[in-house]
């Protein structure tokens, strides 16, 4: 079972919602669409579901061209950010409703409902109405209904966005487990990098209606193909600075020069953009040597176990996330350190030319 998009694009009133996109999704996989609001996640899902017809390109389901086929005629289930349930029906009847429409027998329905309710921890609430449930339970009810349909394609559009932080954390752990058993193709849209990482599977990073990269989730995270993907898949955002390579050395914006190692050593001489993640910035030099940077501390934020430092590096805004709680003086000079193995090198146009060496090892 596969879903294949070939050169699919969507233009609405002259505005490009989705640029020509090729994507192949396999049976039994979790596929995350990761990108900010308006990056095209929902538009792409609607094309996959058949809720919208592409202006160009074809959609194939199990090798068969289904472009233009109505959503009702496809085996698709969708869950939205808002919890959508039938308010007058019990949880049991809500979960059973798609099966009744399919004309299943009472015994088949009961078996499927009990199984889905058990997975979603809704068994004690089956006789209640959705509005008597908490937000998390209501969304689990909607998820259970999507699961029982036994649809080949399940589309989840930011399903946890309206839930409390802790509930979201719990469901994020449960959802991959549930879907591993189900065997359908799952597509899950989110704006949050951490959610993509927790869900695992594959990730399609999206930016301005384009899939910038599609691969295994940890690979997209550790080896982003370009600066845009790196920015999309980093929260807080990746930090960037100008560098140049000459001979065996790499020189950072403020004139500090170190011997190039790893993939950076193989780069042609020239000007590049270096990128690094906030959690790789340190307040002390690593045993193997680090590149020092002199910055000014703008703001600190404590999380209890870690400290976010917002820095001004010659007009560039950087964010660092360092271990421990540090009470640093705002506005003061702060020297920070970065290991070369954590540095990505992009061309000035933003294409990755040297991944961070630690990421290749990971």
């Amino acid at each position, binding site marked *: 079972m596969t879903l294949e998009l070939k050169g699919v694009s969507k233009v609405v009133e002259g505005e490009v919602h989705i640029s020509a996109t090729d994507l192949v999704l396999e049976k039994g996989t979790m596929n995350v669409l990761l990108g900010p609001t308006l990056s095209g996640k929902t538009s792409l899902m609607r094309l996959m579901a058949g809720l919208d017809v592409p202006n160009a390109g074809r959609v194939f389901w199990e090798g068969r061209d289904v472009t233009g086929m109505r959503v009702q005629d496809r085996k698709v289930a969708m869950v939205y950010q808002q919890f959508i349930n039938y308010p007058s029906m019990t949880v049991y009847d809500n979960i059973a409703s798609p099966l009744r429409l399919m004309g299943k027998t009472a015994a088949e329905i009961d078996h499927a409902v009990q199984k889905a309710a058990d997975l979603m921890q809704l068994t004690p609430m089956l006789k209640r109405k959705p509005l008597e449930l908490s937000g998390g339970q209501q969304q689990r009810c909607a998820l259970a209904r999507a699961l029982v349909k036994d649809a080949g394609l399940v589309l989840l559009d930011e399903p946890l966005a309206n839930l409390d932080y802790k509930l979201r954390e719990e469901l994020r752990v449960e959802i991959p487990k549930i879907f591993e058993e189900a065997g359908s193709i799952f597509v899950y849209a989110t704006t949050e990098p951490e959610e993509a990482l927790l869900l695992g599977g594959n990730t399609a990073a999206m930016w301005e209606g384009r899939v910038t990269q599609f691969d295994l989730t940890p690979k997209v995270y550790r080896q982003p193909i370009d600066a845009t993907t790196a920015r999309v898949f980093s929260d807080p955002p990746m930090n960037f600075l100008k560098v140049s390579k000459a001979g065996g050395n790499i020189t950072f914006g403020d004139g500090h020069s170190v011997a190039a190692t790893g993939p950076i050593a193989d780069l042609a001489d020239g000007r590049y953009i270096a990128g690094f993640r906030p959690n790789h910035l340190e307040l002390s030099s690593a045993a193997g040597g680090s590149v020092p940077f002199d910055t000014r501390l703008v703001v600190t*934020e404590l999380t209890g176990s870690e400290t976010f430092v917002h820095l001004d590096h010659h007009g560039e805004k950087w964010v660092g996330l360092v271990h421990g709680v540090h009470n640093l003086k705002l506005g003061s000079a702060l020297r920070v350190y970065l290991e070369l193995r954590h540095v990505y090198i992009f061309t000035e146009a933003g294409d990755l030319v040297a991944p961070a060496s630690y990421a290749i090892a990971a």
Partner: protein
Amino acid sequence: MAKITLDNLAHSYLPKTTSEDDFALKELNHVWADGEAYALLGSSGCGKSTLLNIISGLLHPSQGRILFDDVDVTQASTADRNIAQVFQFPVVYDTMTVRNNLAFPLKNRGASPAYIAQRVQQIAAMIGMEAELDHRARGLTADAKQKISLGRGMVREDVNALLFDEPLTVIDPHMKWELRTQLKSLHHEFGHTMIYVTHDQTEALTFADKVVVMYDGRVVQIGTPEELFNKPQHTFVGYFIGSPGMNVLSASVAGSSAAVQGGTVPLGQSFAELEGKVEIGIRPEFVTLTEGEGLPVTIRRVEDVGRHKIIRADLFGAEINIVAGEDTSISPDMNRVVFAPDRVNVYVNDWLKEGKGVL
């Protein structure tokens, strides 16, 4: 700016109350310092919005008093309390320019045009919207509109307090960073008394000087982010702060060790005999996977969350979460866990029990 006193305060939405359970907000007594930033943190239904509504005057408490500095405002209307509020969704006048939106609260209070012009310019610079000052608000993105709401909330310098009710919920993660950092700098610059309601622990911890954790209508702890992380006063705080939250295990404690299923855990403190429900709590950050010593566990899952790994394991039916560094490699032989003794907290009936230090 004002100091806020919550004196014997409680609220029930029911006309008649027979027990403590009938109260959405259970009795509390606190003094919140002038110029501090507080976050009210808890899951939905914990009473945080009830408390905020009492402070803003949208709700009159069924019991107790609220004082701004030393003036009783319990029965005063919202308008008379001289506060500024920012809500979850942007409240912006679409037909007005950004400039007029920001100037609105000042004009209402009869400020001089010269002062208004200067102050609006200052606020626009803070929220990074100087270039858009003469645009109409209509057609701006939700982010931009919420920035205007935040700016308008801060435009008056003479308010008693600034109240925020989940102001960043509708904002994209990347923009959240920017706005939160701006709020933080503004707080440093102006020293407003700020009260910020959220269910998001990261937002609460990074924004506030003091976090007020609420659970089931009760304030269970008020503390700095560090205190909440290191010494959760209640198992709920341990669970709610941290991602994943603190591991909690049933235990029996004697002297400076705790007996749990599977073995003995050394403690950094010593205890006399404890009665009631006794548990130990240890944060995933202070649990280490080992090959040799420690309590035996079965690893169920390893999650790669980028900057670290979360290992989900089972200890005789109890779930144990472990946080390990991004570079840590996990071998199949690692089937035991060790807890850092000075990081193990002891709880009796869900409340933290302090012991005596051991040398």
